[in-house]
């Protein structure tokens, strides 16, 4: 059967550029960056035909892609909501109230950790340390780190994400605050 899943031409061009960053014959090194591109382009998760397409672009076996996507935590192997809310649960965030943030989100959105709202807007996921311990508690949504959270701040972030109505991804432009 013909494989119909394909990168957009501009994404394919970027994929080829990335593959050129490694010596001849070492193009498998492009696998992790290309999977990020694919996830952003295909609704925030990696379905099997998408992974097979990435294998074909690089010229490796599909199994080599599956073994990678099943290892790393950033690759979603099931559909996720438009906005994947990734809340850090490790030490420093926990010490400063991460559990309260998670339960507030669960109450507010009416779902449990790991679930997606019925409208497909939000998924709650708890994750391990994101290197934002000095601004704990925190959550990541797309490329954005939301830091020094309290429940009011979480509410306004949800309102804003809902108003934008867009799918977030790791390639979103982020305005970096002045420290």
């Amino acid at each position, binding site marked *: 059967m013909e494989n119909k899943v394909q990168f957009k031409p501009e994404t394919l061009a970027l994929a080829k550029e990335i593959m050129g*960053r490694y*010596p001849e014959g*070492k193009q*498998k*090194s*492009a*696998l*992790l*960056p290309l*999977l*990020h591109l694919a996830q952003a382009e295909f609704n925030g998760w990696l379905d099997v035909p998408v992974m097979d397409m990435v294998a074909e672009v*690089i010229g*490796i076996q599909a199994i*080599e892609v599956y*073994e*990678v996507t099943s*290892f*790393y*935590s*950033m*690759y979603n192997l099931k559909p996720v909501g438009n906005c994947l809310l990734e809340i850090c*649960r*490790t*030490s*420093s965030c*926990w*010490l*400063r109230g991460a559990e309260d943030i998670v339960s507030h989100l669960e109450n507010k959105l009416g779902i449990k950790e790991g679930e997606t709202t019925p409208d497909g807007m939000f998924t709650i996921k708890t994750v*391990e*340390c*994101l*290197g*934002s*311990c*000095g*601004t*704990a508690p925190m959550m*990541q949504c797309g*490329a*954005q*780190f939301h830091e020094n959270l309290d429940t009011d701040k979480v509410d306004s972030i949800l309102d804003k994400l809902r108003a934008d109505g867009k799918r977030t991804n*790791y*390639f*979103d*432009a*982020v305005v*970096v605050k*002045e*420290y």
Partner: protein
Amino acid sequence: MSKKLLLKHDHEPGIQTYEVYRKHGGYASVEKALKTMTPEAVVEEVKKSGLRGRGGAGFPTGMKWSFLAKPEGVPRYLVCNADESEPGTFKDRYLMSRIPHYLIEGMITSSFALGANTSYIYVRGEYYYVIAILEKAIKEAYAAGWLGKNILGTGFDHDMYVQPGGGAYICGEETALLESLEGKRGNPRIKPPFPAVKGLWGCPTVVNNVETIAAVVPIVNDGGEAYAAIGIGKSTGTKLISASGHINKPGVYEIELGLPVEEFINSDEYCGGVWKGRKLKAVVAGGSSVPVLPADLIMKTAAGEPRLMSYESLADGGFASGTMLGSGGFIVMDETASVVKNLWTFARFYHHESCGQCSPCREGTGWMEKVLHKIVHGHGEMKDIDLLWDLQRKIEGNTICPLGDAAAWPVASAIRHFRSEFEEMINSHAVEHA
């Protein structure tokens, strides 16, 4: 004791951009190294500086560099470890996002010393916005002639790329990082051979932490001896400390090594004291892997000497009464915090992050998490404390990479110093259930 090298200009407006960075003396080390020094002379200065790996292991950088094999006709690589994932550590993110050119400058100067014409900065995938900042800065560096062919007309060519990870703590271990950079699962390799002989794609490779590579800039600019004059004993230079937890002023601080721990915690220049006027209970001084210490032992050694922020002083007393500087991830717990519950978050972390290659780590981290979950959720029994002790002992030293040790040490130290807290937690729940 405030001596700043890496964060001297971090608050200058626009320091992220090439123009402002250059105006503040940026790229001087590249100019000096490429135009007036041989690669061997740069390595010599790094040796003289006494610089030690800032990712956590503290191995002498000059020595690591001198192990690099140089077979004819085989490319060599410099790989920057920016997979910062040790809980409590966020210094590299600060440095890269705030002053990206500092790392790029260090990468070029270091690559010249190592004879590497290509380098990669492996950044954890969650830091995608940092990757965007680095890529913009690299573009500026190419445009200004610091990267590419025949840099400064010296005949030295260098290309630099940023590589995203996929979300895996284990990729901070250098051989797992190389596997990941080759597009594979992050399973650590058996050493030897070390990366200096067989690294990226089987070629000689040096893997250094972000802060280590950045430190090469002042070492080349001011000389290894000047750098070695900063700090104390074999802990030379400055160190970025990520301070978090129950303190008034969490953040990244550059300290001169040798600063008293007490001053670091209480001075307004740094942590600004324990928050909410509470008392200090415990500190994890160097990232989640290092032994937790109670307040009295973090302030003073067992012999009663003031504890200093240095590799030697923090390790004083071994694991019986000391800890490690590690990555400089300094997590503070106040008197209301539960050391046992905090430990449970660590155990969950290591279980989640074990790559699964070695049985003692794959199975043991899961067991430790389960037993701690049981204790924290009110179903603990006294014999569980001994079970935890037994589990951590069976992991430590029995794995290919240090993740096993990293998972074991927090458990061992919590039981060693806070056994009564485990007992109280188990007893109070036993009363509830009765």
